[in-house]
């Protein structure tokens, strides 16, 4: 009985502090719309990203710079999901892989895949290198690269990805993202703070750390999704 009262008291205290915290936030006030009012959030972003950061794509400026910490969280979520999947399904490579394809693909498919694969890779790299200029970015570019590898994996029996190379690329990309954040923390005093030098608007090398971080994210997402597909495809089909 006493336990119940203590729990109720704790919930009441928690509720009181939550309510007093949320009371300070102006819910219902229009902070989003009205581009002419410089007090609103959208006007702030639309004005700041070309002027201060010299980034043409406002969405990239928000995702990597203004909300960069959220992006680090998203990358961590994907990393954890891939780690969990690999820890369950990954097998050593010496187990044979010829059961990957039930039916061998025709020579038309094989030749077409060979021609398309480098083009898809170049498109993916283009998308994440130009993330601050054109639509797209690290996640999109990484996913496109993974589809390119998927095409090769389901077309060729002999095509395989080197797991050591994948692991190293993925780790270096992840460490690079965190290092870019720590650079801002050490030099400018806040995590993921952009550099003072940001170049000119619409240049390829502009926006300070933003293109660098997006390249890291692209490599990370691409390698992670590719290893997931590789691992899934190398599971032996269930014997019927």
């Amino acid at each position: 009985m006493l336990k119940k009262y203590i729990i109720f008291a704790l919930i009441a205290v928690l509720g009181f502090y939550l309510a007093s915290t949320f009371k300070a936030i102006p819910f219902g006030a229009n902070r989003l719309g009205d581009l002419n009012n410089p007090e609103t959030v959208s006007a702030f972003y639309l004005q700041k990203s070309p002027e201060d950061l010299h980034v043409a794509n406002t969405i990239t400026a928000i995702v990597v710079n203004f909300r960069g910490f959220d992006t680090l969280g998203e990358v961590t979520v994907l990393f954890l999901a891939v780690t969990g999947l690999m820890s369950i399904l990954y097998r050593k490579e010496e187990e044979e892989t010829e059961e990957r394809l039930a039916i061998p693909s025709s020579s038309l498919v094989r030749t077409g895949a060979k021609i398309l694969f480098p083009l898809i890779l170049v498109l993916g790299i283009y998308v994440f290198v130009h993330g601050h200029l054109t639509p797209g970015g690290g996640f999109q570019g990484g996913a496109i690269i993974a589809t390119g590898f998927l095409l090769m994996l389901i077309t060729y029996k002999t095509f395989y990805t080197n797991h050591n190379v994948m692991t190293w690329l993925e780790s270096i990309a992840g460490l690079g993202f965190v290092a870019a954040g720590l650079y801002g923390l050490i030099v400018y005093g806040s995590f993921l703070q952009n550099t003072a030098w940001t170049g000119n608007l619409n240049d390829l090398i502009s926006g300070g750390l933003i293109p660098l971080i997006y390249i890291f994210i692209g490599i990370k997402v691409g390698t992670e999704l590719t290893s997931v597909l590789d691992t899934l495809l190398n599971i032996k089909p269930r014997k019927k």
Partner: protein
Amino acid sequence: MSMILFLIVMVIIILAAAIYAILQKDLLYAVLATGVISVILSIFFYLLQAPDVAITEAAIGIALTTIIFIITIRNTTRDEDEYTDNHVEKFSKKK
């Protein structure tokens, strides 16, 4: 006007594909129907001036998710009924 007609047709196709994916017992066709949903969704994202999301939906929704589901179907069973019936029998025998 033709644009509105196009959008209405697209919405009808999405709804039809979603209902088909739920009702279809052959899981391979159900997965392909979800792929159709992704195709039309990415067109919608593009028309709503969100090209970033359209690229993501095209790469992940159409290619990667569909393929992962197909690999899963290959490693389990293709027919919905067969799988559930076997397990219901096993479960009832244990009890």
